[in-house]
């Protein structure tokens, strides 16, 4: 049973560029959340998608946008990249709000902005 799959695993971009990260949730899960994790910090919530709609959003600028597809997979887009956007981007899926059985995380996409 495949867990959460994220692609690519690593990415290097230049300041000002745009990037798209992809996530396939665990089988049976319909909710996808995105987190940003800087080195030595805990994951910070970006947004959550359910039924192809953004259900909740964290304290991130509009440069961060997302999408969920009918098959529950999701994309995270970041425009006008800044050096501070360098981080591990984590996708987490769940079959409910995640409070009962927790989230299932992917291994993340390591984004480096130069």
């Amino acid at each position, binding site marked *: 049973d495949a867990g*959460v799959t994220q692609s690519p695993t690593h990415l290097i971009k230049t300041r000002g560029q745009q990037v798209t990260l992809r996530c396939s949730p665990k089988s049976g899960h319909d909710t996808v*959340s995105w*987190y940003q994790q800087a080195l*030595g*910090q*805990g*994951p*910070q*919530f970006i947004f*959550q998608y359910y039924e192809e709609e953004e259900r*909740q959003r*964290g304290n991130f600028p509009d440069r961060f946008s997302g999408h969920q597809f009918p098959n529950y997979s999701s994309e995270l887009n970041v425009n006008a990249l800044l050096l501070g956007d360098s981080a*591990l981007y*984590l996708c*987490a899926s769940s079959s409910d*709000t*995640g*409070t*009962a*059985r*927790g*989230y*299932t*995380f*992917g*291994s*993340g996409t*390591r984004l480096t902005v130069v």
Partner: protein
Amino acid sequence: SQKIEQNSEALNIQEGKTATLTCNYTNYSPAYLQWYRQDPGRGPVFLLLIRENEKEKRKERLKVTFDTTLKQSLFHITASQPADSATYLCASSDRGSYIPTFGRGTSLIVHP
């Protein structure tokens, strides 16, 4: 604003001892607390969830407590092994929000 705090200093212990990690929260009353394990370069792995009406939860060598008076959760690993070395994250959310806020994690190093 709600805050969830974990000791940023690494915890070093000898194999076979019990490791105890602390998670403190302020400015809110979470309905639950979750604990995750994270290995370097990997995503967190869910371990345990404890609700506010539960004092203690166990799973194999793991035990979690939740003290709403002290606003604290303790995470214990008994008979620790070098393979338990990792960063442990706690997470919770305020009532009315189901989006967990994560602490920065505590690194556990178990020496053989």
